[in-house]
């Protein structure tokens, strides 16, 4: 029985990992080798032309590096604003009693039920009327914060000892400096989880940039990959090179900070209220 379970687990792990290994190995092979079966899981030589073609683009415009930069800018800024706004609001909801607080919390939680896919068209119309298509502001604005982040920060801060906050107040600290110097540093695990989850989801975002990034300069990685995949001159190897480049940053993040990815996933199952 023991051996059966070990075998099943190892076989499943290999099966699940194989497409990722395929992506990396295929990115290092000439196109004709990729479709030669049986597939060589270890490339004979390191064929780097694919990477050159992915970065250069079929038209030689070198737009991919710019698109990668865009993804970093958008995902980075959205992570920062999401953490700051969620922490601020979560702190307010956790530690400051005021009339209507429960209603505010409920309203914010209600936005979880509005799927982005259902409001993308009105948002697009808002963006066109504000004339922010093709800008970083346009890419960032709809994602400044989210209900899940606020929920996460509120749950985390609700057990924070009031004595520490009161002591700081008696020492003459202002509320904003308490937030900045006591609350934020002391919520590091929640902040890290939220920042990483937000970064990942923005790195993955296809739908919104598809609507509002029309010019090549303002596209993000997912859009480049879609475009690159559609072009006739893209061979399989270059396609996988583009995909590998898109995946390396997020995989590095995953391998070094896997704890936060996992805690992010399991957070859902421990959510109360």
């Amino acid at each position, binding site marked *: 029985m023991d051996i059966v379970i070990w075998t099943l687990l190892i076989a499943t792990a290999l099966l699940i990992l194989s497409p990722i290994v395929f992506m990396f190995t295929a990115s290092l092979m000439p196109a004709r080798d990729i479709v030669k079966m049986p597939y060589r899981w270890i490339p004979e030589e390191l064929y780097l032309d694919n990477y050159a073609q992915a970065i250069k683009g079929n038209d030689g415009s070198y737009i991919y590096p710019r698109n990668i930069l865009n993804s970093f800018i958008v995902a980075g800024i959205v992570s920062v604003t999401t953490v700051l706004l969620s922490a601020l609001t979560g702190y307010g909801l956790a530690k400051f*009693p005021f009339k209507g607080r429960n209603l505010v919390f409920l309203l914010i939680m209600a936005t979880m039920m509005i799927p982005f896919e259902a*409001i993308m068209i*009105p948002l697009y119309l808002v963006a066109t009327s504000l004339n922010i298509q093709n800008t970083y502001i346009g890419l960032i604005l*709809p994602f400044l914060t989210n209900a899940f982040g606020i929920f996460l920060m509120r749950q985390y801060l609700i057990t924070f000892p009031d004595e520490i906050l009161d002591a700081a107040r008696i020492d003459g600290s202002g509320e904003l400096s308490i937030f900045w110097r006591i609350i934020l540093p002391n919520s590091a695990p929640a902040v890290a989880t939220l920042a990483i989850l937000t970064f990942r989801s923005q790195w*993955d975002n296809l739908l919104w940039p598809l609507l509002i990034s029309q010019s090549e300069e303002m596209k993000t990685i997912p859009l480049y990959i879609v475009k690159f*995949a559609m072009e006739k001159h893209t061979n399989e190897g270059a396609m996988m090179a583009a995909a590998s480049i898109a995946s390396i940053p997020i995989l590095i993040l*995953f391998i070094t900070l896997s704890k936060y990815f996992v805690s992010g996933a399991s957070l859902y199952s421990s959510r109360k209220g």
Partner: protein
Amino acid sequence: MKRILKKGIEHKKARWGWFFVLPSLAFFAVFSFYPIVNALYTSLFRKRLLSLRPPTFIGLENYEYLLKSPDFWNSIKATLIFTIGTFIPILVFSLLLASFIMSRKRFQKFFQMAFYSPAVLSSVVAAAIWLLILDPRGLANTGANFLLGTKGIDYKWLASANMVRFSTILVYFWKYIGYFTIIYITGLASIPQSLHEAAMIDGANGWKDFWHITIPLLKPTTVLVSIMSMLQCLKTFSTQYLFTQSGAPLEPINVITLNIYNTAIRDHNIGRASAMSIILFIIMLFFTWLQFKASRSGGEVDYM
């Protein structure tokens, strides 16, 4: 004197409370509540993208059109097939994998990470990888021919209607199985060890323990996983988008989100796309309501 002071502090605290929540509230007002109300409003109009003509009020005509349109019902069908076809295997296999991992004393972390890794990749990257694997000359045909003992058959992963449906399900299953496995692991870890020990003392074997102790106590996790995976599936877009863009037939995988996108951006029909958005919203609202209801009926074991 003391009471007045206390009142003053409370007053001050309330003011700061509002100050802290206002930015987010303003944000949600503009970027969540306004758009959904706007979608509802627009769905009652005949409105074209980029058109200079003012929109005309047509009442429920968009909805009537959709409910009579075979194309829309096809989208509902495609979405439902995809959702049911994905979430049931995910439910079964993530529970199995989680129990397997939890039964090991070593390498738990390694397996969790290995299973979870596809979930961190972008959906577009995932779809691109599978486009190559499912190519007629690709690994999928070689693998299927090997497993089924056939020779040189092309299974038309991206060409025949049923196979392309199956392929989108496969991609999604591959991508999210690890994510839900981790949620089940959290659920399994929260069952007190003493319950399993008590069952063993009463003479239960591993299978009986799993069936009579683990499964019932996992009900809240199971509810959570099914609702979450269902909601995820209803919103699926990237895989179907990339597959159809690279030549897969549209009809079998024309899910609602893809239809909304095409109706608005390709056909410029904003009113009808809004009506579709509202229907999608109502479907998802129904499932969210179901989640609340199901999680409340969990009784003692309700730790959601």
